[in-house]
């Protein structure tokens, strides 16, 4: 064929610039090993944490290495644990048996929606384990093996589990859409428990677990450190309101023990929410106490194993008993309330030394917590506002146009939907909901839960946060929303980054920061700043003309 010259059409043949061969090889997902490129995995657990907790196989290793230094009989260990878990959890057994792969959950996971990796489809994440279950624990599987979807447990499978079960934030959105309620979070918890038998864990989870075991909170804040931090907040409160507060710490005989996630002690904007709690309790004169021993509501044991979760959670009831309080109030947190609402009473109850929670200010008895005896701060505050016990001036928040992010666990493991909304509507005049299929029980995750909220996991978090970011961007453009309220410490940390990437200009706030900003406290001075010590819009002009006159 004659050589074509540039002015001839044939010269410009189809360049295969973009024919990237991304389509999977024909034999399907079963045989594609996970690709541990840098930035696609979270740093592994440091040995000292596993040692301090007495957990198996502590050593220095990296997922990028070929050899993960696993014990010789690692297959036997996994099978033994797999069998044990199948014997202990009916949910695990049923979720292994009943999936019909109808695909209703396939496009509901925020990591699949944002990233497009098919193994992030909930049905396929579960198949990673189900294929091993089929091959080794069912008679049909043993016979037909690969023909009926079975798969041998190889080293690649373990690596795949580590890769994909630390790409699930256990937000349970898939279980809302599954006709049988199959909960991939439950399967992820089982898989992580099995992986921990081989010492395969993530440092961003195990360090807080070790800290919480030692000092009572994830950050390793020691008792006098917590007192110093709370007093530091009270100084700021005094600057803003002119009211001096002495934070009650480890006070015996108080009516209420208050437990909040330790994120509120260190990470802005959580710290402003913590200030909000103290201002609220001061205003209504609640007889409460903090505890430095039980200074962690959150529980990273939830991302490790049932026993570790129970070990970390036991401190709350033990401390409530020691201090002799009547009941417990829990702060704004996501995973904390998954543990409190669904595990705590079963694991560490019965709490018969406590009373059924009764608000000393309104007299409301919280029947819904008759056994666990612990109520959510928004349940408590909504009740206060409903009975008009708080003097609120929503105009103080007029410069705030807020929307509300339903944190996954309060939404899907409790159903805490109306309480925060009632409070926000009472303290803020411009509140706009995000689109219907991104809130309430269909809420999209922040992309950083279940131990994934660390900086080396940034791209994955931004992919996971994209559906939420898109919804925030929508209300930002449509209603000029500038604040995203939420009731979770991890959300208050990770959503800051999600918003800065997907919807720049939107700040993140806790619900009780809004409450405190709008509260007219007895004996407070004229408010010129909000809790972040930023001048209030009104105050600026007044200051300006004060200066002039």
């Amino acid at each position, binding site marked *: 064929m004659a050589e074509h010259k540039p002015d001839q059409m044939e010269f410009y043949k189809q360049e295969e610039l973009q024919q990237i061969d991304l389509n999977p090889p024909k034999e399907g997902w079963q045989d594609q090993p996970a690709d541990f490129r840098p930035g696609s995995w979270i740093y592994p657990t440091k040995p000292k944490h596993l040692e301090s907790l007495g957990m198996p196989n502590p050593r220095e290793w990296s997922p990028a290495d070929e050899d993960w230094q696993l014990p010789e009989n690692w297959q036997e260990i996994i099978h033994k644990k797999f069998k044990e878990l199948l014997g202990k959890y009916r949910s695990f057994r049923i979720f292994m048996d009943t999936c019909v792969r109808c695909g209703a959950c396939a496009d509901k996971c925020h990591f699949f929606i944002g990233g497009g990796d098919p193994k992030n489809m909930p049905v396929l994440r579960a198949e990673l384990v189900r294929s091993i279950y089929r091959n080794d624990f069912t008679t049909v599987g043993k016979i037909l093996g690969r023909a009926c979807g079975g798969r041998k447990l190889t080293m690649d499978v373990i690596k795949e589990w580590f890769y994909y079960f630390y790409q699930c934030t256990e937000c349970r959105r898939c279980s809302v859409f599954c006709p049988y309620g199959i909960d991939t979070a439950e399967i992820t918890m089982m898989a992580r428990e099995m992986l921990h038998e081989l010492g395969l864990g993530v440092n961003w989870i195990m360090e807080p677990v070790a800290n919480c075991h030692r000092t009572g909170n994830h*950050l390793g804040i020691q008792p006098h450190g917590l007192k110093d931090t709370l007093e530091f907040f009270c100084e700021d409160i005094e600057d803003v309101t002119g009211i001096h507060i002495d934070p009650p710490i480890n006070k015996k005989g108080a009516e209420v023990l208050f437990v909040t996630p330790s994120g509120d002690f260190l990470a802005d904007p959580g710290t402003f929410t913590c200030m909000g709690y103290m201002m609220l309790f001061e205003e209504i004169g609640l007889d409460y106490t903090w505890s430095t021993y039980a200074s962690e509501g959150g529980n990273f044991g939830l991302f490790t194993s049932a026993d570790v979760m129970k070990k970390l959670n036991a401190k709350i009831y033990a401390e409530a008993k020691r201090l002799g309080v009547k009941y417990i109030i829990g702060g704004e947190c996501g995973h904390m309330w998954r543990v409190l609402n669904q595990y705590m009473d079963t694991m560490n109850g019965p709490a018969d030394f406590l009373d059924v929670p009764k608000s000393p200010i309104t007299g409301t008895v919280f029947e819904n917590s008759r056994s666990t005896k612990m109520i959510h701060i928004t349940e408590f505050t909504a009740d206060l506002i409903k009975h008009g016990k708080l003097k609120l001036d929503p105009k103080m928040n007029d410069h705030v146009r807020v929307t509300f992010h339903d944190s996954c666990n309060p939404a899907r493991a409790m159903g805490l939907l109306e309480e925060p909304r009632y409070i926000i509507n009472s303290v803020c005049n411009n509140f706009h909901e995000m689109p219907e299929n991104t809130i309430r029980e269909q809420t999209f995750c922040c992309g950083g839960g279940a131990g994934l909220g660390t900086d080396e996991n940034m791209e994955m978090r931004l992919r996971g946060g994209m559906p939420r970011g898109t919804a925030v961007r929508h209300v930002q453009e449509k209603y000029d929303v500038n604040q995203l309220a939420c009731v979770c410490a991890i959300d208050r940390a990770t959503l800051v980054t999600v918003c800065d990437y997907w919807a720049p200009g939107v700040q993140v706030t806790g619900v009780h920061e809004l409450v405190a900003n709008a509260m007219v406290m007895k004996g407070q001075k004229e408010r010129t700043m909000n809790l972040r010590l930023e001048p209030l819009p009104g105050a600026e002009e007044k200051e300006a003309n004060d200066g002039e006159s």
Partner: protein
Amino acid sequence: MAEFKAGDQVVDIDEDGFLQEPDKWNEVVAAALGGTEGVDDLTEDHWKVVNFLRDYYLEFGVAPMIRKLCKETGFKLNVIYELFPSGPAKGACKIAGLPKPTGCV
């Protein structure tokens, strides 16, 4: 784990360059660590921040909150970034001989 020469002393540092044994810290080590973080000479302001961090860590076992560091030293956050280009956690804490702060929420 790596070795780090500071004056005539040799100390161990972790993969991010943080001192492994905080009690091996002294002014010489601080100045040397400063070099790794783009802080060649430690002015009086630098020492104010470093000493506050050092004292806080020795007393409370953890690094202080950023807001507390700013309030106690009287420096605004941007001033601290000017003093320590790699910021309060990576820069100032390293020079003060604190372990790498992991503020996991």
